[in-house]
């Protein structure tokens, strides 16, 4: 067993367990903290995949900005605890879990048996160079300039929208 595989197993376990914990904790704040942990584990996996830029952005934007926003709102609203997850009436919840399990098994099956279609021998050079800030920046500002501008307008729309919905007083 080499070091890389060991790292993968550690990160993957943290990611899987923290995602499970996230949906089963009664207290929403604890759920949010587990989600942050999950995002850190994902950032580790991105580093293993040579995606340095995405790994850093994952921590700065996702774990750092988006999740902090979630935590702020959670603490601001102080929503209290939910009752036990599978509490009471809803057979639909068991059904949901069943469906999700079936979907997972199906996808896993497909991925294992359909795997002939993936490139099995990755080109390490290409893989290393494709994750750098330089490559991604060049792609975004040349080929992806239209989507990039659209993303700008998207953020404008989100800013206006958040203002309309959450501003304290309107005129």
């Amino acid at each position: 067993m080499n070091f890389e595989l060991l790292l993968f197993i550690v990160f993957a376990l943290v990611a899987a367990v923290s995602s499970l914990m996230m949906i089963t904790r009664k207290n929403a704040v604890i759920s949010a903290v587990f989600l942050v942990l999950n995002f850190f584990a994902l950032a580790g996996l991105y580093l293993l995949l040579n995606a340095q830029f995405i790994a850093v952005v994952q921590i700065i934007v996702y774990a750092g900005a988006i999740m902090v926003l979630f935590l702020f709102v959670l603490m601001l609203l102080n929503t209290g605890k939910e009752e036990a997850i599978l509490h009471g009436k809803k057979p639909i919840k068991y059904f949901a879990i069943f469906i999700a399990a079936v979907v997972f098994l199906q996808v896993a099956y497909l991925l294992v048996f359909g795997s002939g279609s993936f490139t099995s021998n990755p080109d390490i050079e290409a893989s290393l160079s494709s994750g750098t800030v330089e490559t991604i920046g060049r792609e975004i500002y040349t080929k992806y300039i239209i989507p990039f501008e659209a993303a700008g307008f998207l953020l404008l729309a989100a800013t206006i929208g958040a203002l309309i919905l959450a501003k304290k007083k309107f005129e």
Partner: protein
Amino acid sequence: MPQTTNEYLLILPFLVLSAGIIVSLCVELFFRKGKELLPYLSIALFLIVAYLSVGQIYEKNVLFGGMLITGGIPAIFNLLFAAAGVLVMLNSIGFLKKYGFYHGEFYLLTQLSVLGMMLMAGSGDLVTVFLGLELMSIPFYVLVGMNRKKVSANEAAMKYFLLGAFATGFIVYGIALIYGIMGNTSLIDLTENFYIYSENIIFITGFILILIGFSFKIAAFPFHMWVPDVYQGAATNVTGLMSTMGKSAAFSVIFILLTAVFMNDAGSKLGNYFAVIATLSMLYGSIVALSQNNLKRMLAYSSISHAGYMAIGLAAGNKAALAGIMFYLAAYTFMNLGAFGIISIIEGEEDKQTDLNSYAGLAKRFPFLAGMMALIMFALAGIPPMAGFFGKYYVFISAIQSNMTWLALVGILSSVISVYFYLRVVVYMYFKEPGEEISVKSDYSAYAAVIFAGILILSLGLFPDTFLSVIEYIISV
């Protein structure tokens, strides 16, 4: 790669609208009378976009390394969005005061969402599809909940947002799987090699995940649960916007994804999937609509069944179906905008006067409005010679061409059921005694919108072959 000036000339509709959004933002910010001015500014913008799109309708161009496609089908859609946008704007001028949200942001968000729709219709790459979709959806989430004091609007916004974001999750995962198989996200590559890729089971899984995501947006059956509540809870003009332009934009993406299928007249493995969705949506929408007394809710269920009729064309998957759905979408857009326009005129403050009883005896008090409403209801029910009839007719014909006669028969059955609840409105207006007094303020710009919608419905219905042959010609270019 170097961009030529020519490319920037070809995306002029996008540039004009983007510049217009910035100008509108400044107008809203710096002029106290901004909100009086903005609807007219938006209308002018949409008219310019329409004019520019008509100019490039016959020449198809792939721009910016395959990110955007202009001309051809995208140009038709731009035209549709622009025309519908003008109607929504005319409709909103008076309505927003009544609704209690009289602010300039409404117009800004509408412009932004139209920009998103144009990106969706013109996308040549899954990245553009995704960003266009979000640029359309995020303003919609906000528009649904824009009146913060109304609990029903809050709830509708939250339901729409959570389910919309859920659908986005499916779309992104589907795109990820497709990217893994193709090695890129170009829709041009996808179209050229569709039949090679579709041998791969993971590609098909990803493709179906994307289609599930878009089924949320077109409001087809298993993914329809948000439709009635959101259509009812949102402001009536926003409902008109979402139910027509939002649905058209989602269909435009499905067209792009299935271009290979449509162009080869060959059908696909996905035909059965669409046939099931079509059957369930048509029957569910028509049957549940029978018991609705609120007009907005009734039109919401009817829009589910209309999504079903259009899905018949997706199941048929040939060129005739493509032209048929485009015709249907145009007809549906103007019928629904007309219907929601009239509802927004009749509607009082606090969502009052949207149920059927308010329409009792309307013909005596407001003969003009009642007449227009009757025209639109006949059109929606698919009674010839209105636009709705030919939309359904073309789609059913395409199904028969693809040996799916049973699907066409189910469609006819569902249309027969739907005649009941559309005509019930007409019966209430013309043959019932007026109940309690309703107050309606006259609102000339909204009248103008309704008249335009009526003219378009009639002209689509009286000269269907002309429109269809134009669409078919553009598709074949």
